[in-house]
């Protein structure tokens, strides 16, 4: 019994401290005169923070009786979703407006976190400026619209021309197949062993970036897919081949070492340091990467447009259409618990009016989804890669639009990490993935590929 008594004192003290702490921080709930705006601010991604600070000032000037409370969440992508979901679960912390990834919308609608915007959009005279694909990206499974698109993106290969030149590769290098990509990476490794020949994101710490920029850019180029006619495709050769590609680049030393690749900050490091410093040859990454190097970015690099080249990601063996891309994008959505939805929508419409959309699309190197922004000379001229990445829209793919996708995506990260660290062969990892997906969606919702 001595033990028990010994335990009670510190535990009670800790519990007391906790309860006092909770009292101190209580009373933070939104009321009708405050709207809470939650968004991600992490590493090099500060553009949303700048945008919302500006909009807050304008909005409060126009509506003196309403205060905008900005809640920047400093976390890597998947941790951001977790934090946002936890905020949404409690009425006292649920945001009125949130920065929401298109792929989370359907799932968060089913969780009851988001409010439909159709009534507001019907009265918004600028809604017809948004292209149809952007409208669809913000829709829930019930057909209602829950998110207003801020911009979309495509993905492809970035390369440092100096590094490629040293390896004897041309300035307009454009691989036709995975093998040509691997050959180029091997040539870079030979010409300078200190350079990381090829970067792709992989593993759990990189979250959805690994799955979308990494794995799906491979898989959708094999002719196989993740999801077809309402069923999840299991056991496809393309899945194994994609994992095999990942195994190859990590075991041959063509990619960063697994320990570097599993560092939460590698995305920031590659974009702001390694590419400008010529420490990475080729990077499989998003259209927005140039946003880092603009004057408004975190790592301004005036010469970037001469030093950096772009090429489409080839399909596995060059099969038509010869290139592959994935598209996603982020939206602004309204919390279902908002006490002042009119004010929340007004904030959204102000943040995504022509001027602010233009600023965000340019600063964050997004592909514009408003036609008036897309035609604006400032948008087309500031960034010379805009034309290239906009062109990839022709070959682009979208992620499975189902609420199960985020869970399945987690299993892909697990498979990627298992092969890049050599813990499993591609076949073993694919089999584990198949089993996990059956556990998530049920066998009746799967099909053998």
């Amino acid at each position: 019994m001595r033990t028990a008594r010994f335990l009670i004192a510190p535990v009670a003290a800790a519990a007391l401290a906790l309860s006092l702490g909770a009292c101190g921080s209580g009373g933070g709930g939104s009321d009708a005169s405050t709207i809470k705006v939650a968004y991600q601010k992490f590493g090099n991604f500060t553009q949303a923070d700048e945008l919302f600070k500006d909009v807050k000032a304008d909005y409060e000037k126009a509506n003196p009786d309403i205060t905008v409370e900005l809640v920047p969440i400093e976390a890597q992508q998947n941790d951001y979703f977790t934090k946002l979901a936890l905020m949404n679960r409690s009425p006292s912390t649920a945001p009125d407006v949130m920065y929401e990834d298109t792929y989370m919308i359907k799932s968060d609608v089913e969780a009851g976190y988001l409010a439909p915007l159709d009534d507001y959009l019907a009265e918004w005279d600028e809604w017809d400026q948004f292209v149809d694909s952007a409208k669809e990206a913000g829709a829930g499974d019930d057909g209602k619209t829950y998110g207003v698109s801020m911009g979309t993106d495509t993905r492809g290969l970035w390369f440092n021309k100096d590094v490629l030149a040293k390896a004897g590769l041309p300035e307009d290098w454009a691989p036709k197949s995975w093998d040509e990509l691997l050959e180029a990476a091997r040539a870079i490794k030979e010409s300078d062993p200190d350079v990381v020949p090829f970067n792709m994101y992989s593993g759990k710490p990189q979250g959805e970036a690994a799955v979308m920029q990494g794995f799906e850019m491979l898989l959708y180029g094999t002719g196989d897919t993740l999801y077809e006619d309402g069923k999840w495709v299991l056991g496809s050769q393309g899945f194994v081949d994609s994992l095999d590609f990942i195994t190859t680049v990590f075991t041959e030393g063509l990619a960063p070492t697994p320990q570097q690749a599993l560092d939460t900050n590698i995305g920031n490091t590659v974009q702001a340091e390694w590419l400008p410093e010529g420490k990475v040859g080729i990077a499989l990454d998003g259209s927005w990467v140039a946003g880092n190097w603009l004057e408004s970015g975190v790592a301004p690099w005036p010469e970037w447009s001469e030093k950096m080249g772009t090429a489409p990601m080839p399909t596995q063996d060059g099969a038509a259409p010869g290139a592959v891309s994935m598209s996603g994008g982020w939206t602004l959505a309204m919390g279902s618990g908002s006490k002042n939805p009119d004010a929340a929508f007004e904030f959204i419409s102000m943040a995504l009016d022509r001027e602010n959309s233009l600023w965000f699309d340019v600063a964050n190197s997004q592909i514009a989804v408003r036609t008036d922004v897309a035609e604006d000379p400032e948008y087309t001229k500031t960034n010379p890669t805009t034309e290239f990445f906009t062109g990839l829209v022709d070959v682009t793919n979208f992620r499975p639009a189902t609420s199960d996708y985020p869970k399945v995506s987690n299993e892909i990260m697990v498979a990627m990490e298992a092969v890049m660290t050599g813990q499993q062969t591609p076949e073993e990892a694919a089999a584990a993935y198949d089993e996990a997906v059956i556990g998530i969606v049920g066998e009746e919702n799967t099909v053998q590929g």
Partner: protein
Amino acid sequence: MAVTSRGVARVVPLAPAVVLLALFMLGPVVWSFYGSFTNAALTGPAALSPEWIGFDNYAALVGDPDFPKSLWLTVVFVFLSAVVGQNVMGILLAGLLRSAVKPVRSIASTVVVAAWVLPEIVAAFAAYAFFHSEGTLNTLLGGIGITGPDWLYSTPMLAVILANIWRGTAFSMMVYSAALAEVPPELTEAAQLDGANGLQRLTWVTLPVIRRSISTNLMLTTLQTLSVFTLIYVMTGGGPGTDSSTLPILAYQEAFKFAQVGYGTAIATVMIIVGGIFSVIYIRALRPEVD
């Protein structure tokens, strides 16, 4: 009547502590136990209205290859870092410092206690910086011409076990210092007169006398180590792959990274059971006889 009022008088001062315990200790345990029978999630339909799914989470756990591995890693981590590492180091240090001269004693105990005083996140970063591939340890090894491995990547369990020994030994050392001070000197002197050597005195006199401290300390360090999260999460993130994912890391990952709260709480419930088993073993094995 006198008995009742005495009973009340005894209960009243205890009541706040009991209420707080029920609220902040028992409450989460019960909720976690309940949650482990639902499909509660952070997003998707199950976030809105979690359903009762009985033992499905536990059935899934049994079939999950990560789970037995994680359970094994947890047992290895607890056994090597708490039961062996912290306890043996603690009792050795306490014994050695007793016979050391004063300046040595104060300097050595300050150094050891410093690791314990540091907030867990700071200690975790210090250990991360020490074991990192370009960290203190490998720089020191480089100074004498040895290229050290990337500890956190190639031997993640060794790194976190050593870090936890470093961090936790002070606690055991303090418990054992206090216990050793209470050993009646006439007992050891008598044993010495009977011709017992140092090791014999330790095994036959000192350890039996302090056995209750040993059992308390073993239980506390075991339970503490079982729930170590920050240290491992900061140092290795449970990786590479799942090579250092002990149960707390696995539970966090399933509940908050993969949004499956129900499944995560099932793992947490298993942790409670493992902790319970350890406690029962200690209480039984080192049950203090009436003396």
